[in-house]
């Protein structure tokens, strides 16, 4: 069965002092529809770059990326933008809300971009903000929201068009444990909606919430572990804890 995400020989090199820096080095990966996959590894191992390559935020040096059966590694910026607005939702560690737009305006933006009417987009955005518990902050600019509130708004924005794929880069990196718990509950909801989640994290608790764990080192996937019954989660967590020590 082909996955919603397929990569083959995916690589991204950056110019270095001598030899190029191999941020992502020949990654072959397949993620099935509705699957929740976390990516872990030490800092600088290429986790975020892999996520950005899958979402078209960076261009691969070599290799292919296929999303829902469509080769996307050669798409133009405009074509990528059109694909993202319908099929890909992003959540970042730094939230990346447009600071000139209020919370609800940020959330409704992708809906407006796909042509949803202003009224319908606003209704859908408010529903999501309500569900995420930040409806009372809807008209506030991002500068006036806490980190947890901003991340919930960012998540609402990622979900507003019900994309088949959600890419999350350290979504809880700037959040306290309470806010992290809230975000994890929201991610659990994605699985129920058969939305695919590719999640980069340093946090073992967040990683352990996924169906599958990809472990990266030096730009390569060195381990692919199913977390839904295969290995005991505690063993994975011990391994993860070993990196951090």
């Amino acid at each position, binding site marked *: 069965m082909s996955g919603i995400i397929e990569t083959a020989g995916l690589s991204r090199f950056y110019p270095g002092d001598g030899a190029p820096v191999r941020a992502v080095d020949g990654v072959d990966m397949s993620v099935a529809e509705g699957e929740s996959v976390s990516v872990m590894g030490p800092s600088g191992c290429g986790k975020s770059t892999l996520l950005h390559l899958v979402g078209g935020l960076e261009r691969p040096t070599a290799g292919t990326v296929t999303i829902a059966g469509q080769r996307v590694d050669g798409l133009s910026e405009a074509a990528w933008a059109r694909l993202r607005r319908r099929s890909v939702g992003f959540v970042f560690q730094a939230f990346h809300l447009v600071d000139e737009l209020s919370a609800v305006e940020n959330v409704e933006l992708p809906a407006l971009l796909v042509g949803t009417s202003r009224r319908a987009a606003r209704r859908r955005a408010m529903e999501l903000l309500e569900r995420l518990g930040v409806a009372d902050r809807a008209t506030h600019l991002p*500068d006036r929201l806490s980190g947890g509130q901003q991340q919930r708004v960012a998540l609402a924005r990622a979900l507003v068009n019900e994309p088949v794929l959600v890419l999350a880069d350290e979504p809880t990196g700037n959040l306290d444990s309470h806010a992290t718990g809230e975000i994890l509950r929201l991610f659990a909801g994605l699985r129920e909606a058969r939305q695919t989640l590719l999640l980069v994290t340093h946090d073992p608790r967040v990683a352990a919430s996924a169906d599958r764990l990809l472990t990266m080192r030096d730009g390569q996937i060195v381990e692919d572990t199913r977390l839904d019954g295969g290995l005991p989660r505690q063993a994975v967590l011990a391994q993860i804890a070993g990196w951090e020590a």
Partner: protein
Amino acid sequence: MRAFALIARLAWRNLRHRPGQAVMLLLALCLATTTLSLALAVNGAGDRSWERVWRDTNGPHVQSFFGYGAERTPSDATLAKVRADLAALTTAPGVVAASGPWDAMVTTGEVAGDRMDVEVLVRDPAPAAVGQPLLTEGQWLDGGDGVVLEEGLASTMRVRLGDTVTVAGQALPVRGVAMTSTTGRFPMYQPGRIWVNQPTGERIQAGGGVEAFASSVELRLAQPGDAAAFVAAHAPPPPRRGEFFYVGLSTWEQLRDGSHDDLSAFAIALVGIGVLLGLLTIATAAVLVASRMAAQIRQVGTLKAIGVTPGQVTMVLLAEYLTVAGLAAAVGLAAGQMLTPMLAGVSLSLYGSPQAPPVTWERAALVVAVAVAVVLLATVRPALRGARRSTLRSLATSARPPRRSSRVGGLASRLGLPLPVVLGLRSALRRPGRVLANAAGLTLGVAMVVIGLGLDRSVHIFMTEQTPDEVEAPGAEIVAEVVDRLVAVVYAGAGLLLALAAVNAVVVAVFAARDSARNHAILRTVGATPRQTMVAFVVAQLGGCLLACAAGIPLGVLLFNLVADDDLAPIRLTFGTYAAVAVIVPLVYAAIVAVPARLFGSRPVTPSLSYQ
């Protein structure tokens, strides 16, 4: 001492890390300092040339001049009184040497086949103690019929020794060519001057056709600095009602200043251009500094977090830009010195090859002061604002986020406009400070466009309103050429102003695009295409440009009319021209801002997301 070393080190490091900004500011400042330096030096070159002749001829500290028309001759009593007063001046207290009274008359002559008015000056064959003309060719007057021609007249009309000039019907051989400091050089100053001896002068007067008579004395004082006081003390009473003659005294400074009107006009034009360039440079530098502070806010926060005071943070930026200002002043002074002989070389009023005057402390101080003032005006406010921002806030964010939501911004979405336009309007309305800053940077540019158009129209009117007599006067072609060159200098200056205004617009656009790059990258992560982000950016920038048009058009008219005088009439542009400026400038600006927006839009998203 340590603090100064730290400030110097940080400033030097910033200059090395951001050479582009430093070079841009340096270029803009150099344009202003060079123009100002040139303006100050060009006048000095004229002074220097005149002073050389004045020294070599033992020129007067004070000249007294009396003249009247042949058709309105004053009464004999008046003539006798004025002549006596003139003669009395030669023995006045403070006078150490004198020559004259010298009689002169204006009549019609023929030089190299051209009929023209000439001023015939009657002089002694013996050298005068004061103001003896300086021979460049041939010999001075003797007892014979020969005449001596003023150097400008001889060279312009291509008269050689031995040629004949005809004055009042009498053919007179040219014996010599000489320079003088008491009148300007032909053809800038007309009529042309011819020196003759007493018998020749009497024959010319007897021949009839004299249009005006004059007489003058030339005085050397014990103290040249007393000239103004001497003139004030011996000012003659004005003619009584019904009498038509002129009598007056001039100091050597007045003679000098009046000897090179063409260069003075160049200098005035250059001062005006230099001031406007300075103002534009303030706008450019302000944009550079403000954008730099916005981009570097995190670095400022880091510096403050490790114990650098807000004052020291400001000093780092000031030290950096003051270094650039000092360099620009030095380049401006040097370039002014080098270009002065070239520019002064087009003058018709100078004797010999023009030389740049030595750099005086006053000139250097003025140029340095202008460069420093430009930098201070542009730097202090944004630098202080950045430095006073709370350390935590500086560390937490990159660019300053908007403080409040705008109801008008919300309304923009209800107008049914395309989404990119709505996004652009929201961006502009929610960052009014940024819009105003952009508008301030562009306003002078719009004013320059208006001034350039006004100048073109006024020069055209000025040139077409010349009377036929002036155009056909002897040497008129050469005078017209100088006028053309002056116009060329003014146009070149206007061109420089427009170029700097365009550079300013580009700087505003590039920094605005850089400032917006992160937000546009975010928009692209949620599905906005590069074209949509570009349109949003252009719309956001147009607000500032429209404000700039609203303020810049009247400002241009005001600035133009401030410098307008008898020769340069107040601005005469049609309403249609102003309307065209208000339409075309925003369109051109939109095209300019679209370029950096498109460049940023074509880049991958990730670098822009992490951009500081």
